[in-house]
């Protein structure tokens, strides 16, 4: 009478991943990539200049500060242990100390630092403590940027996740799981659920089917969708008018989503798709490391093909208690971070921090090796922020957050340094990043007090 459980398809996935990567390699090496440049003329601010891209990569539970922060500020800092994998890239990123997210502090809300760290990271506003009835966060910086410049690309923004397994039951001390699992918030009550499946990311960007078919498939599907979207929009509009309160809010979400897809289709008709040489990747690999790598590959493809310029990636959800058996760590990450200065436990957390940093390094390296339309590297034209909303996971602190900013922002950033600021809202950095994305007139974001000058 009982169902059989799902078969483990991991080996197949591995195989496909290998093939996929081969394809991706070809894509990166593609010497004629510059020929795609003219396609970007429409809508781009300056025809000769490559656009700036921005991504935020989130790791949970903080990073052991002693192995993350260099001893000395300036350009000649010695790479601390956790950042060793980035040795080759040392002049391509900067570390910024002193940034804080005070909205994640307990205040009157008590426990729940993990939900808060994740839920406020990109918004800089306090989240309402609720198990569900009245979720309330803020608009995240990626969405602020996407709302201003998203019309320049086929996708205003991309939300990715490598944390696909949800826990049943409560998430963190009375906070709905929506806070920990969503970095991007379109409005205070509309989180943008990230996509965990690499294959679906790829197909969303470039269509389904073989390389030759997929652009046509994408086009055909979009054409077909036109009148269906008109139809459901009309219906939703009529329904929404008759509703009130939260019901109305839900229909609003539906309506704004329809509108956004329509706009996207309309843009897609103007903007040709840069079809990558790679094949679509398989689904979610069984191995976490493989999953992260594939997702990074997707992010790179999205930037390289200028399908979007704004992305967020939840490498793991805040409070993640994942084990790392591949490096011999049987305890859960979250459990370990409550180490109470036990050197042995700290050592294990450091190993996890290092493991994540290795994957980051792999991604940045690829970004650095990929040429953008202007001849610079893709990394040069990007701002890749990597960090956590917890600083010291042991004590749940939200000051002096581990923040790494890679890339030159198209020549507007000065990487290769370790700078220290004095108790500055993280949102100040976001404002500075938004400026470089071409967002104008943004005066505040969350708890910001100004711009971060020295980046």
């Amino acid at each position, binding site marked *: 009478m009982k169902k059989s459980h799902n078969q483990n398809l991991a080996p197949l996935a591995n195989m496909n991943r290998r093939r996929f990567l081969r394809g991706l390699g070809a894509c990166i090496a593609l010497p004629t990539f510059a020929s795609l440049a003219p396609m970007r003329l429409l809508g781009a601010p300056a025809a000769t200049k490559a656009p700036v891209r921005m991504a935020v990569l989130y790791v949970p539970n903080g990073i052991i500060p002693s192995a993350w922060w260099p001893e000395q500020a300036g350009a000649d800092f010695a790479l601390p242990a956790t950042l060793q994998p980035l040795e080759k890239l040392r002049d391509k990123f900067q570390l910024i100390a002193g940034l804080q997210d005070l909205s994640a502090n307990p205040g009157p809300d008590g426990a729940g630092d993990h939900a808060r760290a994740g839920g406020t990271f990109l918004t800089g506003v306090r989240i309402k403590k609720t198990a569900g009835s009245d979720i309330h966060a803020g608009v995240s910086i990626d969405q602020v940027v996407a709302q201003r410049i998203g019309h320049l690309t086929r996708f205003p923004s991309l939300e990715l996740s490598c944390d696909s397994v949800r826990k049943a039951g409560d998430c963190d001390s009375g906070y709905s799981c929506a806070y920990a699992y969503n970095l991007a918030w379109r409005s205070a009550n509309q989180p943008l659920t990230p996509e965990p499946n690499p294959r679906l990311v790829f197909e969303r960007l470039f269509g389904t089917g073989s390389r030759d078919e997929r652009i046509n498939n994408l086009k055909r599907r979009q054409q077909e969708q036109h009148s269906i979207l008109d*139809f459901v929009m009309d219906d939703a509009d009529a329904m929404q008018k008759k509703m009130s309160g939260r019901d109305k809010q839900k229909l609003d979400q539906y309506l704004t989503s329809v509108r956004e897809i329509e706009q996207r289709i309309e843009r897609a008709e103007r903007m040709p798709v840069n079809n990558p040489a790679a094949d679509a990747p398989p689904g979610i690999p069984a191995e976490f490391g493989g999953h992260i790598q594939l997702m990074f590959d997707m992010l790179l493809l999205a930037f390289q093909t200028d399908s979007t310029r704004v992305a967020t990636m939840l490498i793991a959800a805040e409070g993640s208690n994942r084990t790392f058996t591949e490096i011999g760590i*049987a305890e859960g990450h979250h459990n370990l971070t409550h180490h109470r200065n036990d050197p042995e436990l700290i050592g294990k957390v450091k190993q996890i921090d290092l493991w994540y940093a290795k994957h980051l390094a792999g991604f940045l390296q690829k970004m650095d090796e990929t040429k953008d339309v202007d001849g610079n590297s893709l990394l040069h034209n990007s701002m890749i922020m990597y960090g956590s909303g917890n600083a010291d996971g042991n*004590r749940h602190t939200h000051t002096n957050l581990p923040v790494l900013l890679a890339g030159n922002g198209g020549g507007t950033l000065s990487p290769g340094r370790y700078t220290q600021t004095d108790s500055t809202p993280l949102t100040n950095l976001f404002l500075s990043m938004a400026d470089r994305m071409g967002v104008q007139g943004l005066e505040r974001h969350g708890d910001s007090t100004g711009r971060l000058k020295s980046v």
Partner: protein
Amino acid sequence: MIPGLRPLKNSGLWGILALLLGASGGVAAEMAGAAQFHKDIQPILTEYCFDCHGDGEKKGGVAFDEFTSDQSILTNRDLWWNALKYLRAGIMPPDKKPKPTDAEKQLLAKWIKTEVFGIDPANLDPGRVTVRRLNRVEYRNTIRDLMGVDYDTSVEFPADDTGYGFDDIGDVLTISPMLLEKYVAAANTIVAQAVPTVSRMVPETSIAGSHFHEAGAAPPKRERETMLSLPFYKPATLAANFPAPHDGSYELTLNLATKGEFDFDPAKCQVVFKLDGQPLLEKEFGWDNTSFPFHFDQKLTKGNHELTFELHPLKTAPGETNTLIMRLVDVGIRGPTEPQFETKPKNYTRFFPRDTVPSGASERREYAQEVLRRFATKAFRRPADDRMVSRLAALAESVYQQPGKSFEAGVAYAMQAVIASPRFLFRIEQNEPTTSQQGWAEVDEYSLASRLSYFLWSTMPDEELTRLAAHGELRKNLAAQVKRMLADGRSEAFVDNFTGQWLQARDVQGISINASAVLARDDGTEKQREEQFAAIQARQAERAKAAAAGGTNTARRVPGQRREKGTPPSFFKPRFELDGETRAAMKNETEMFFASVVKEDRPVTDLIDADYTFLNEKLAKLYGLTNLNVTGSEMRRVTLPPDCERGGVLAEGTVLTVTSNPDRTSPVKRGLFVLSNILGTPAPPPPPNIPALEASEHNFTNTPTLRATLEMHRNQPLCASCHNRMDPIGLAMENFNALGMWRDKERGQPIEPSGKLITGESFKDMRGLKHILVTNHRTDFYRCLTEKLLTYATGRGLECYDVETVDKIVRDLEQNDGKFSVLLNDIIASAPFQKQRNQANAVFADSSESSANSSDRRIVANNQSQP
């Protein structure tokens, strides 16, 4: 009665009048409530609570004498709600302090419910659930029932956010552009797969791989059509029969797929495929991951024909990996291809009732309307109105008028719009028209049908429910319908989804438990294990270094070599592993056990303490129940020996693993699990800066047991207040390790499971604890389970005005031996399930939503309406 909960007509003079009447009545009621507080309630509080919560004391931030006004006594609902919970659970006043008499307790409870919450037991406020989007489980099931196709939403859609522990909470289920994009794409895929776009076609059938059986043997009885996986290394000769309906031309398609692992495997095999003994294909296969369709055109005579599939191993390397699989997916049979034999496509009558499509334009339009009305009514779970139907028909017409497009293709296109529509994706409910001034009414019968079917089946109502609703006869036949629904196979969804979330049984499939670490801890060999691993790592690092120096690339493994030579296999292969089969068996155990309580209408206390469970051989072995003669992979009901500690959900693998850390048990998590999910009195979350248990270990000279470490932990008064509630429960469960196995020792030291609950009861072990839970704490469990099930059933978190709904059900359970049917029927009969606040009222209730931090928005709204 609280004016905020009164009906408010938002129109003209009546509205103002109602407001005035409501408000003045409310003020009077409020004065009475406050007066009673001073007269009856305050003395009780002074006597039993003020030691800690009055006269300047404010433990836990709670004081009962700091109200700023009479009004604030009554508006502080959260305070009173918590007071009521703690009082009834026996947590407050604490052990060894004088306790109020039963009469005093009842007085207090009644005052809170009537005066503070404004509950009228004769007319309970049903609240209002926000429109619910179908979650991905409900979507998949609804598509299955509506369209007859299985769309795997667990892959295609992202996980739904949860609230109050469940994934069917209207407020939490949001829609983003990405999700809507997925819905539109899914509508396209689903319709393309389900709805035929031609009236006639060449007949097609297929024989699934699972239908092939050993030549000469009887055909197997399989539940599911699936592929057949055959290893490359074992000879096989399989056969299947099919009837050819007529003499004619047929096209056979053999679909094979090979599956290999990442590592190269040199094995090869030969496949011979025969029709009636005549070979159609002879071919060699090797290491690959590819699908192979082979087509054969054949003339067949009417009657039975035999297909034979032979697999001959060609080359194997003994002792190698042996990972290659040949998959016999299916054999497609298309024909006879002669036009006179064309038939209606599969599923045609499901969507198109007529034999032929009319030819005239207006007749066609009429038929399109007929088809789409029927379809949309089903999909929307209520009648589609004329405007909707004619718009859909117009959409269909815009397609089928195009050259080369069939009528069916046009209708199929309109069906995509139906499935992408908010009326399909959301559960839109309506109230019965009412003239009463209550502010709420019964939901209409269509809404009720959906509430029932999504509650008990996680899918849309079937024809019978819809028919009854259409005739207004569902409420009249509720009991019979609930009975029928529970007997239906679809009710498995209720068991899966409710236990999957209430008991977190879902999580057992994904949770990471490191078996070798857990077992090493039981054996007291943790140190050795860590040293072993460090040695392996060191060796690997050395080798990598050497390789880097020598310039060779060792990153790629030599084909066939599975692991480092010289690694002790025990390190990689612990005695027990939480493999896929074991996890599935655990989940099945919990589900089948819960289902047995439902189907046999047992007392719900059996869920905690029972003398039976469901096992297969693997699970019985893991549990150490080897003398019960349980063999094979099939799960079956097993009566447990009288002295067995198993029985009940707390001794099941699911609960025991999901409440563990990856490397060890967590008595704290287990204790908290019982408090939250069995007793309904979760401990508040810990303050920040709390060390993990391991950190305390360094205060010991030897390796301490968890009990010893926890005791140390509890020495701090701040920790003790909550840990005294959680730890004794969790420690009673210590005889079960993080894999759910029985153990007598932890870290080589005997386990001491005895303890004392904060409410005063002592127990010797797990059996004793279970006994206390189902006797002394039976009411707490009834209440907790009722709250969980009500939350799941209604799709919203409970509010304070629901307290009486829950109390009423708990009373019924007390009077009826806690029978499951009483719980279920009461929930279905309850106000929140049967009724809904009117929209006008909902507007009122939500009017203060902008003040996001108000603890209870309804009260704020209420205050604002005071003159």
